[in-house]
C-alpha cells in the first residue's frame, strides 16, 4: 500500500501551517520554524518537551478547545490552532453565551 503523503493545511494564530498527513500539530508548528508556542504565567516560552503527552508543556487551543497537547494530536485539515492562553477566557465566555442562549 503506497503512502498517502498529502500535505495537511491548518492555521496557527491565523498563519498558515502544514504537515504531512498523519503528523502531529507539534510537527506542523516545528515545520513552520516555531520552537515555542505557549507563554507561561511568568512569561516564559514553551514548546515541546517530553514529546509523549506527559509534561503538558506543548498545550495549544484547537478549534476553540483549550488544553490540547500538540505532540499527541494529528493535524487535521482546516484546524484553527491558537495559543492556549489567549483565548481561554473567551472560550469560557462562549460557554456562558451558549448557556444563556438556551
Amino acid at each position, binding site marked *: 500500500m503506497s503512502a498517502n503523503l498529502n500535505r495537511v493545511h491548518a492555521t496557527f494564530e491565523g498563519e498558515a501551517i502544514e504537515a504531512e498527513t498523519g503528523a502531529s500539530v507539534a510537527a506542523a508548528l516545528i515545520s513552520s520554524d516555531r520552537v515555542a508556542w505557549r507563554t507561561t504565567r511568568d512569561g516564559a516560552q514553551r514548546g515541546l518537551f517530553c514529546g509523549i503527552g506527559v509534561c503538558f508543556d506543548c498545550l495549544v487551543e484547537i478549534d476553540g*478547545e483549550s488544553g490540547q497537547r500538540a505532540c499527541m494530536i494529528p493535524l487535521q485539515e482546516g484546524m484553527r490552532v491558537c495559543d492556549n492562553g489567549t483565548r481561554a477566557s473567551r472560550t*469560557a465566555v462562549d*460557554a456562558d453565551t451558549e448557556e444563556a442562549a438556551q
Partner: protein
Amino acid sequence: MTHTSDVLIIGAGIIGCATAYYAARSGLSVTVIERDLPASGTTSHCEGNILVSDKELGHELELTRYSLGLWQGELAEFGHLWEFERKGGIIVASRETSLASLERFSASQREYGIHSQRLDEAELRELEPHITGNALGAALYPEDSQVQPILAASHLLRLAREHGAQLVTHAPVTELLRDGDRVIGARTPKGDFHAAHTVNATGPWAGTIGELAGVNVPVMPRRGFVLVTEQLPPMVHHKVYAAEYVDNVGSGDAGLQASPVVEGTPAGTILIGSSRERVGFDSTISTEALGRIARNAVELFPFLSRVRMLRHYHGFRPFCPDHLPVIGHDPRAPGLWHAAGHEGAGIGLGPGTGKLLAQALAGETPDMSLDPFRPERFDDPAYLKAHE
C-alpha cells in the same frame, strides 16, 4: 531522651502552629511534636476559609470576630506570606425559597453585626460576570477572607521557632506521661517530652489523645472533597456559595451533603467544594461526592463545564456534637489542654484559638472567656440535654 519545656503542643496543624506562635511570643518555652510534618493533617486538605458569612449568633461568631481581627490586624504584616486576601464572600440564591431564606438569614446576621450587602441580579453580575443566568439575587459579605492554609501554618510555626519554639517531626505520641493525676508530658519514639502544660491540637484525632488521658473528647471526622482546576485567568473574584451552603454547615446529617463553594486563587486555579459526610476516616474516593460537587459548581458557574479538573483531595473536618470546638484546660486530666474540633472553620479560628490559649497558658485572663468551649462540657448531662 527527655526534653522539658513550659508548653508541649501535640500537632503542627493550624491550631498547633498558631498556639505555638502566640505562646512562644509571650515568652513561654514551647515544644511542638508532630507525628508527620507540619500541616500534614486537615490543614493541608482544606480551602483556607476565613468566613463570617456562615456564622450564626453565638460563641463561634464571637471567636470568629476575634480571630478575624487578628488575621487582619496584628498578623497583617505577614499576610503576603500566606496569600491573605480579603476577597469577600457572595451567597447566591437561584430559587425564590432560598432567596427568601437568605434575606432572612442575612437580616438577622446584620442584627448581631455581621455586615452584608444585598445584591440584586444586576449588581451580582457586575461582581461575578460568569455567574449562572438563574441567579435571582445574592448577599455580599465583605469580611470573608482567604489564606493559603499550609503556608499560614508553616510560617506561623517558623515565626514561633524564631521566638525559640522547638519542632520535633515524625514523633507520634504513644502515651501521655502522668504524675498521679497530672499530665506532665508525652512519650514518642523520639523521646519523652515533659511540660507543665500539654496541648492536644490534633484535630480529628483529638479523641485519640483524649483516650490516652482517659477523658472523653468527642471530636469526629466529617469528610469533605475539594476539586482543583487547571490554571485560568481570573474568572471568579470572590468566594461564591449557593444559599444552601449555610444549611449544610450546621447540619448533623450523616449522609452525603453537597453544595457549591467556588473560588479562585492567586495561583490561578479554582477550588471547588463542598461535601460533608460522616464516613469515619475512610479515604476511598467517592465518585458520587465528586460528581455532585461538579454538578453543583457547574450550576453556579456554567463556564466550569469545560474547565478541567487536575486533581482533587479530601480532608476530615474535626467536629464536636454541638459544632463548637474544645478549647481550654481539661479539669478531668490536669495539665492537659485541648484545642481542637473547629470543624470547617479551623483556619479562620486558628489565631484566635492560639492567642486565647496562650494567654490562659501564661496564667493571664484570656481576651475572651473560654468557658463555652470547655472540654468537660460533654460529660455534663444537663449540657447534653440542652443541646440535643
